[in-house]
């Protein structure tokens, strides 16, 4: 379990994180927030490449500041907007270089080879990374993080700029990976559909503060996560419709029944995560 305790971080006058306390249990946690919310700062502090002003990072109770060198072996990361690898070197040379520098066992390269095959990149492993498309570069970055077989995996916008097919491949890989080798994954993304499909837990962050954290079932119980029922009926030779929340459905149906109205259809419409997140992050709704 990864626990971030009372983390604060300022860049000049800008507060990136404000006494953030949050935990990430095994499984996939989606870290959701608008641009500048502090997601990348949080990930970089958790990886140890950035120092917090106050607070500490605990991996299974072990402090990152004290055990960085041993813990770093268990952490894999894909950083946002970074090349992550040397563009002028071939794909395989990059993987081999980092595997050696990070002191990984020989099996890591076997894992890398398998992942290259899964990503249809095996035939391009001799090409310089700069010759690859953006999507393929991102896949190489994901492979670089996964070949460590990390217990903690940080994916900062792993599908940024990817087309729908590449994005699907990354999504599928993450899903399969977590199933095969249980680990703690922290995923940041602006794609709510992806987050909803992958994550077991959600953490919402805005202006450096955690707004809400919890499992997806708890997210469904939030007051603004309500299914809406659309009732279509015929009245006075006209087809009308009305949207009501679950709690008002029975009263609407009984009143329509009393009026002798013909009810044509009742649809249950699931809420859109994007709308819920927008409401949550914009402050329209307080959790």
């Amino acid at each position, binding site marked *: 379990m990864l626990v971030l305790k009372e983390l604060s971080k300022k*860049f000049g006058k800008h507060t990136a994180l404000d006494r953030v306390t949050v935990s990430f249990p095994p499984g996939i946690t989606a870290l959701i927030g608008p641009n500048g919310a502090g997601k990348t*700062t949080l990930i*970089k502090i958790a*990886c*140890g*490449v*950035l*120092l917090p002003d106050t607070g500490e990072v605990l991996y299974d109770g072990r402090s990152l500041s004290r055990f960085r*060198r*041993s813990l*770093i*072996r268990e*952490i894999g*990361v894909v*950083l946002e*907007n*970074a*090349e*992550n*690898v*040397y*563009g*002028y*070197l*071939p794909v395989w*040379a990059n993987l*081999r*270089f*980092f595997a*050696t*520098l*990070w*002191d990984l066992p020989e099996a890591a390269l076997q894992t890398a080879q398998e992942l290259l095959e899964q990503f249809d990149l095996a035939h391009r492993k001799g090409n310089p990374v700069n010759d690859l498309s953006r999507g393929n570069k991102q896949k190489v970055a994901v492979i*670089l993080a996964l070949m460590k077989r990390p217990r903690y995996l940080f994916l900062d916008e792993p599908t940024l700029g990817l087309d729908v097919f590449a994005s699907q491949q990354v999504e599928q890989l993450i899903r399969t990976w977590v199933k095969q080798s249980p680990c703690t994954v922290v995923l940041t993304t602006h794609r709510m559909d992806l987050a909803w499909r992958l994550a077991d837990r959600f953490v919402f962050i805005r202006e450096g503060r955690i707004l809400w954290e919890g499992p997806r079932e708890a997210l469904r119980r939030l007051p603004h996560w309500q299914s809406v029922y659309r009732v279509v009926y015929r009245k006075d030779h006209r087809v009308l419709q009305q949207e009501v929340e679950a709690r008002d459905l029975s009263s609407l149906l009984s009143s329509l029944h009393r009026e002798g109205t013909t009810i044509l259809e009742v649809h249950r419409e699931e809420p859109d995560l994007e709308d819920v997140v927008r409401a949550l992050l914009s402050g329209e709704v307080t959790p």
Partner: protein
Amino acid sequence: MRKILQAYLYKYYWEQRYYLPNFVFEVLGHLLFFLGLFTLLFQPDPTRFLQGLLGFLLWMISLTIMYESAMLVWEDSLLGTLEHVYMSPHPFWQILLGRMVANLILHTGLYSIFLVGALGTYRLMGHTIHIPPVAWPWMAFSVAILFFASWGMGLILFGVALVVKRAGSITGFLYWVLFFTSGALFSVKEQPRPFQILAWTTPIGPAGMVMADSLRPGSPMPLLLPSLLHTCLYVLLGFVVMHLGLHYARKTGKMARY
């Protein structure tokens, strides 16, 4: 440490497939510069030629050692790979040392081209190559202190570059300060006092002086202790500045942005 060396040797091997011509022409440029200087400025004095040649080599080695450490910031920070390098379980000073040694091994081939070229041209000009008796322990000592003092300077440059983005701009100036204090052009001991003092502030000055003394076997070695202290000071200062620079970069997020 072996792993780091292995990793960087592997990386440089691949880099050479792209950048070998750059290295070769860089060495050829240095060779022309050296030959031009010695043809224009000096009579073909074999002792002076040899001293100049070794001083020049020390200068080239010193530049390689220094810039290779600092290059990690200038190159990797721009590419966005420095954070991944930092995520190695090895202490950072070992990464810098391994990287530098790997680069030095690679450059050995290029220094050999320089040596063969310089000696060959000298011979073609009709001069005899006369190798005077050499005090080899002192020669080895001069190379050792050059290695560590230059590495210390490299760590300083690395630390400063993490804090001040444009630290690289002073390297052009540093190049020539080191050249004039290397003993390649004039023996440091023959230079005016301010230049001698300047030589003691550079990582190459004492090494150049010890190297010059090693070509005069039997001469006393009064520079042993001061040059050793000078080297230790450079390494110590290098470690302090490297750690401060890293701490600053990790505090401000400058490891990712250059």
